[in-house]
């Protein structure tokens, strides 16, 4: 649906976004992840025209938008980072205000509001002031507000950052529902375990794309293997032993009473390690991130 080609943006001396090309596929959830300052927000701001790109092109449905951002903003709903609407207005007043400024026809409004509040589980809190909502509910309200204009493309900039785990899970369930309705979703998150749930994932590091593919392909093509062992004897001694093997590159971690390590080569290290139990594990996105970060 949207394609960025060789897009760059610098602020003063800092290259916030460095030659980024990426695609956002229609009807899928694309997740952009990376540490703070990796360039996630800047990419989104350039998409909706809140930040002017230095170079590169943005395509909407195959057509170069050539600076005509209204074409994107007219089909998208954008939720900025750390955004929580007007705290002194009630849930309903907030929605009314955004319906007004987005020119949602009065006839459809009540029904739309009702549906969104139901979908997000906010109906009982209709009259509550936004400031009195929990962090997770504030985010749901903000999401409802941008859904009022029934956008096809939904851009969410770190909607779950700082939100507690349960609300994060609930928020993501709503996003998955939106995908089922045929919406295109692109969101950013600093939590790699959350990014794992995307159909497509873009991992950013210092303004550059490090990895970009479908979740399935990323896991399928991951070149290293992961093992979890339950060590025999003192775990710290076993740790030291594993750490001494060449080629593990410091990728040895304790996990409670287990040790987890990543190995790139085919050799069978397990026999050399005193263990009670060994399991090969599927890589997590965090393993993928660290693997690629190390290679750079």
């Amino acid at each position: 649906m949207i394609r960025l080609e060789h897009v760059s943006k610098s602020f003063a001396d800092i290259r916030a976004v460095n030659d980024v090309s990426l695609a956002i596929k229609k009807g899928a959830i694309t997740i952009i992840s990376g540490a703070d300052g990796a360039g996630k927000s800047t990419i989104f701001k350039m998409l909706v025209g809140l930040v002017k790109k230095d170079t590169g092109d943005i395509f909407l449905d195959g057509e170069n938008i050539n600076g005509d951002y209204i074409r994107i903003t007219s089909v998208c709903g954008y939720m900025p980072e750390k955004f929580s609407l007007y705290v002194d207005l009630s849930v309903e007043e907030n929605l009314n205000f955004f319906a007004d400024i987005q020119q949602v026809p009065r006839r459809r409004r009540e029904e739309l509001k009702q549906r969104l509040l139901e979908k997000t589980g906010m109906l009982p809190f209709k009259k509550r002031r936004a400031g009195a909502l929990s962090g997770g509910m504030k985010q749901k309200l903000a999401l409802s507000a941008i859904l009022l204009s029934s956008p096809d493309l939904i851009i969410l900039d770190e909607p779950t950052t700082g939100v507690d785990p349960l609300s994060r899970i609930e928020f993501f369930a709503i996003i998955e529902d939106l995908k089922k309705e045929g919406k295109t979703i692109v969101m950013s998150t600093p939590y790699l375990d959350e990014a794992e749930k995307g159909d497509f994932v873009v991992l950013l590091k210092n303004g550059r794309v490090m990895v970009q593919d479908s979740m399935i392909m990323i896991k399928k093509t991951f070149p290293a293997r992961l093992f979890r062992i339950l060590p025999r004897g003192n775990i710290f001694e076993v740790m030291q032993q594993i750490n001494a093997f060449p080629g593990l590159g410091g990728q040895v971690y304790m996990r409670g009473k287990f040790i987890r390590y990543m190995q790139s080569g085919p050799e069978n290290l397990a026999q050399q390690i005193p263990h009670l139990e060994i399991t090969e594990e599927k890589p997590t996105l965090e393993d993928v991130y660290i693997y690629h970060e190390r290679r750079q």
Partner: protein
Amino acid sequence: MNQTANAIEVRDLVKIFGRFQAVKGINFNVKQGEILGFLGPNGAGKTTVIKMITGLLKITSGSVLVSGLDTQKHMDLIKKKLGYMSQKFSLYPLLTVLENIEFFGGISGLTRKELREQAARIGAQLPAELLRQRIQALPPGIRQKVALFVCLLPDPEIILLDEPTSGVDPEMRRKFWNEIYQLKKNGKTLLVTTHHLDEAEYCDRVIIIHNGEIVWQGEPAELLQQNRQTSIEELFKEVISKHGQN
């Protein structure tokens, strides 16, 4: 070292703010030398419990024993045993690493000599050029490492870490955990709260707290062994929805 001794014992702990009961009579122990994970949604009461353990908040009823000492009677003694690192507080941004260390070493009553000894003992891992840098110039991961270092200066036996890995990038996060394990190796007891559910797996034992009550506690490893499909996230979702929401 006595394996069964409890570093912290929490008995029928209650906290009431006005008409709101934030903590509803909870009981748990932190065993000496273990890493206990503290999980729960915002407002579940995690921070309230931690603040009562550190004496920052007055206990409404019940008691907290730290190394067998009652926090309501012997806070002065307990303070020497406790290290506390909060997520919000990450040192003075305009001071250098060294200046921060000297300041916090100073207020914890260490002499210059002791301070230097401690610095050498705990943190040969801090490179010399890092010491001269201002906190504000450091990435969050390094900042948290320094904060941990500072919290360890008085050599506490029990360390409370309140969301130590928030906003830290993945590799630094894993490294931070390696440091936590080093502390465990040295016999320290740790109580860690976290927003990252996957970190529950890193702990020896996990307590999930919701609406001021403990809704689940146990060993995450056991859980994953028993049932390979169940992730911590699913467990979390399940126990919390079982106990109803707000």
